[in-house]
């Protein structure tokens, strides 16, 4: 465990996780952060708290205990129905000032990044963005927050030595959720805050779900992604969709495939697309540019098919097949079908 600090910084204690929810549904990243936060809290010998803001969201509180929270701060108010920076920030900052945590974690989602940037500025403290690793330096009682920068070309470990709380946003799908412990109990705190709809400067009119089929690459167990090597739209259709169909996977693409118009942008994997963490990731005709690799490093198994034995993807993959996709992939599909396949239920 870590040393205790003295002086002003010692007034800050505990690890907080912002529990992101929309329409009452808790974002998976928040549960992952409870897992990560639990590790930090153990090393610091402090409690792990979830901070849940919203409108009629108290049903989720028990789940947060089950995923590791010792305490939940709940602010339930109609004005908090939609996420808005101005209201969420006001409440969050007020809670921080009242209860003084030493660490705050939020998901590096659009909402988490929006809120974290505003809160950190208001509190005039340090915020490390988009982390992929968190640890504690016990001798100094400081959080070590590691993140990729420069388009994934480097990793940097960032500290916030003299300010509290120490804040970080963390990428979805890199931290592990704990196995829920059914019936685990915690302490509920429901602080009073004053909130009024009048005088607010922003108003959410509606949330429009993107039409078309739901893509949820982030949650997919198997992803078959195609790149420029597939040659044209027909090749992409036949091989990428073909293999995806055979293994019950979701289709994704490199930016080159997206730019060629073979697949929509929302299917793009990588730095400017989605970060994925499937059990199996197939990379067909993808060279393995750093901007692509940073999006797939959370995969359990990466399988690459590429005709160039020196393609960087082979350094990163678990299994590689060197050769022409147009002969290899049809063979793969056929043999999998013959042997009963790996299709998930």
């Amino acid at each position, binding site marked *: 465990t870590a040393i205790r600090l003295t002086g002003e910084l010692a007034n800050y204690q505990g690890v907080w996780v912002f529990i992101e929810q929309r329409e009452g549904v808790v974002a998976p990243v928040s549960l992952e952060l409870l897992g990560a936060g639990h590790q930090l809290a153990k090393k610091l010998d402090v409690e792990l708290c979830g901070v849940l803001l919203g409108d009629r969201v108290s049903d989720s509180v028990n789940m947060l205990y089950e995923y590791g929270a010792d305490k939940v701060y709940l602010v339930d108010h109609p004005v908090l129905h939609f996420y808005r920076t101005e209201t969420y920030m006001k409440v969050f900052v007020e809670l921080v000032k009242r209860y003084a945590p030493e660490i705050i974690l939020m998901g590096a989602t659009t909402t988490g990044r929006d809120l974290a940037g505003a809160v950190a500025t208001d509190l005039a403290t340090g915020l490390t963005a988009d982390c992929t690793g968190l640890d504690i330096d016990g001798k100094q009682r400081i959080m070590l927050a590691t993140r990729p920068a420069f388009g994934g070309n480097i990793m940097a*470990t960032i500290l916030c030595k003299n300010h509290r709380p120490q804040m970080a946003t963390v990428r979805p799908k890199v931290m592990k959720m704990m196995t829920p412990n059914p019936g685990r109990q915690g302490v509920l705190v429901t602080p009073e805050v004053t909130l009024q709809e009048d005088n607010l400067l922003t108003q959410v*009119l509606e949330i429009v779900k993107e039409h078309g089929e739901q893509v949820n690459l982030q949650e997919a167990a198997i992803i078959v992604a195609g790149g420029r090597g597939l040659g044209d739209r027909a090749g992409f259709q036949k091989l990428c969709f073909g293999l995806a169909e055979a293994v019950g996977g979701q289709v994704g693409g490199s930016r080159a495939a997206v730019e060629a118009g073979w697949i929509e942008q929302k299917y793009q994997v990588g730095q400017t697309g989605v970060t994925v963490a499937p*059990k199996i990731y197939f990379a067909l005709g993808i060279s393995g*540019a750093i901007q692509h690799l940073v999006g797939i490093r959370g995969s359990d198994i990466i399988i690459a098919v590429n005709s160039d034995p020196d393609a960087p993807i082979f350094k990163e993959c678990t299994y590689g097949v060197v050769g022409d996709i147009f002969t290899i992939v049809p063979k793969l599909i056929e043999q999998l079908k013959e042997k009963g396949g790996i299709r998930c239920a």
Partner: protein
Amino acid sequence: MHMIVCVKQVPDTTEVRIDPVTNTLDRSSAPAIINPYDSHAVEEAVRIKEMHGGKVTVISMGPPNAIEVIKRCIALGADEGYLLSDRAFAGSDTLATSYILSQGIATISRREPVDLILCGKQAIDGDTAQVGPGIARRLGIPQLTYVNHVAGIDPARKEIKVHRKLDDAYEVVVAKLPCLLTVEKEINELSYSSLPNMLRAVRFEPKILTVADLQADLSMMGLKGSPTSVSKIFAPPQRSGGEICSVEQLVEKLLELHSNEKC
């Protein structure tokens, strides 16, 4: 409508190399470019100007050679440009950067009040997406991040309506002006620079603002004003390299995984 667009000069991260011996970034290997998201912010401001009239001012904080990105914005149709440049700014993290930029914006808006501030969604080098929210907080105005469509501006009511991109949906929001937007690339397609704008860009000289011009607090900028510090930089861990196999072997492995993992 007076709009200020914040633009950052960045190294082209596709060209960045890391020195394998010293583990430091070799910036000289990469050409300096305008942050790609920021050119879309400039484009959007110019389009708004074409519809509602007004003026587009760009500001950048950076070394003297960041003049180049300001010139690039003039070619894209911006009217005015300021470079915030001072040794005291060096080493600023996002908290300090947003302080310096907000002081710059406040300085400019004392002469010409600002209605709308635009930033990119994030810079491709630091990649934090924190500077936009930081500026909005310091100026005490609403922030609308990840905007992929401006649905309308009502100058009389001083309101803007935008679409904000969420993970699997978009949100329609109305905010009071002045406010700050951070924009996605999908917000627009860049237009070609017109010849007159290109000529103007060649001759254009931005105004340079230093610490003295900003009436800024030295303790809030540079390393001193930055709560975060980089303690270690290293190359991303590489996997040791995959096992090369035949299709038949791959099928075996997949079937084995399937039976073990029940996937």
